[in-house]
């Protein structure tokens, strides 16, 4: 894509470039990335057609239930998952915990999610993601937040949603917010883009790039609260280029079947007949939580800034 920084001029090869990091996310588009907590779940996800898995110790629904500090997963567990599947493996670090990120890089994960689902390690700074060969995905609730993460080196953005609730309402809010703010930038002339950058608290160069492209310069996925095939298709129709599913699969009655159904609905997101077929007899969906009854302190989307 012409918008990505160009290659170094030398005949040597280069790893960890923006094109290689952002390009990796481009390959995941149209797909479903599933949260898994062990090798067995990872295999179920791969069999169902996941494009990647996210290795974590507890799915967000259990992090909510158990409370306490949520951290990076045990390296053994991550390695077992890497061994078990041939699709890309992602893993989560705490916000600002660049040492957890260093560990994940050393384990050879394919993407690091600097995630608000884990307990933040730094209340001021996110990790400097340019310092890594492994690419990062970060959550965002609005355009300014997405661009600040990209300025820090994120190579992929996802909506935050409200993970572990099985309620898609926050993911819808965040995606609509990002899309609306991009649409607004499209209508601005050059004079207005400086003020827009100030308003968004984001670098002018990135704001200008978004205004020209009409999209983020990196891939945008949806995350947080997807529990059904129709949820996944909704996020795609709202403009998400793919979908993360966390607790929605392995907290449901028939994970293998639901996982495959969500993959189908994500590919054929604009075909209600296929979504209907995919939605039949899936067994129980995760029970879910109404986001307006969540105490402020339990809202993960408020973590990060």
């Amino acid at each position, binding site marked *: *894509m*012409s*918008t*990505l920084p*160009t*290659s170094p001029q030398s*005949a*040597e*090869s*280069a*790893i*960890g*470039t923006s*094109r*290689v990091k952002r*390009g*990796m996310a*481009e*390959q*995941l*588009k*149209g*797909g479903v990335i599933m949260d898994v907590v062990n090798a067995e779940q990872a295999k179920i996800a*791969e069999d169902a*057609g*996941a*494009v*990647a898995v996210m290795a974590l110790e507890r799915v967000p629904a259990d992090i909510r239930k158990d409370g306490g500090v949520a951290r990076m997963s045990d390296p053994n567990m991550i390695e077992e998952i890497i061994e078990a599947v*041939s*699709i*890309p493996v992602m893993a989560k670090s705490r916000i600002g915990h660049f040492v957890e990120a260093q560990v994940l*890089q050393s384990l*050879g*994960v*394919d*993407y690091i999610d600097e995630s608000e689902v884990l307990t933040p390690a730094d209340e001021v700074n996110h990790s400097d993601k340019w310092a890594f*060969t*492994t*690419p990062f995905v970060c959550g965002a609730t609005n355009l300014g937040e997405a661009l600040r993460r990209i300025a820090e080196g994120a190579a992929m953005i996802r909506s935050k949603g409200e993970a572990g609730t099985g309620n898609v309402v926050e993911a819808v809010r965040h995606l609509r917010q990002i899309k609306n703010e991009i649409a607004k930038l499209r209508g601005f002339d050059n004079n207005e883009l400086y003020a827009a950058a100030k308003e968004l608290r984001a670098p002018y160069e990135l704001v200008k790039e978004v205004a020209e492209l009409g999209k983020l310069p990196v891939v945008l996925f949806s995350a947080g609260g997807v529990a059904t095939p129709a949820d996944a298709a909704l996020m795609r129709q709202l403009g998400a280029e793919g979908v993360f599913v966390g607790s929605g699969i392995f907290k449901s009655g028939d994970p293998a079947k639901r996982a495959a159904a969500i*993959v*189908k609905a994500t*590919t*054929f997101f604009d075909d209600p007949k296929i979504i209907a077929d995919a939605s039949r007899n899936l067994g129980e969906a995760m029970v879910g939580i109404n986001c307006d009854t969540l105490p402020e302190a339990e809202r993960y989307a408020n973590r990060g800034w």
Partner: protein
Amino acid sequence: MTNTPVIGVLALQGDVREHLIALAAADAVARPVRRPEELAEVDALVIPGGESTTMSKLAVLFGMLEPLRERVAAGMPVYGTCAGMIMLADKLLDGRDDQETLGGIDMIVRRNAFGRQNESFEAKIDFVGIEGGPVEGVFIRAPWVESVGGAAEVLATYDGHTVAVRQGNVLATSFHPELTGDDRVHAYFVEMVRAGL
């Protein structure tokens, strides 16, 4: 215009949008293809980069595998990048046991041969038949070609490994020209398609 080929991009999953843009820049009419009836309407096809196991699974699930095989066997021009190269291999190493390919090129392809994401890289690649200097190669968890049969022609190598192959109407690269803004490989493919119309 009879001379403007209609080229589909297999849109089950992957970097479809970038291929559509590159094909349009190379003067083809480009459109996404997800269904057998959409496949029937195109002169040629690009199989994009993506996750090859997912793509293969979705092709089976949605009844695309046999129509795709039939069109490839009937001589439809096809270009595959990365996962697309894997789909076009007659034989695959390090794939999943149940992973289906379309075939089309007499070659053995090793999946993820260049390593995981931390080993993904970009490099300049000399490409036989493309003028104007080396093309920019972006390799992402990329496969390489272990060996080719007599009918297949090697068009590019990197570090001793074959990374671009053509056999008749079928073209495959380990790398992703669609991510670079350098449309010469797409233009090369569009010329292949045009020559057969």
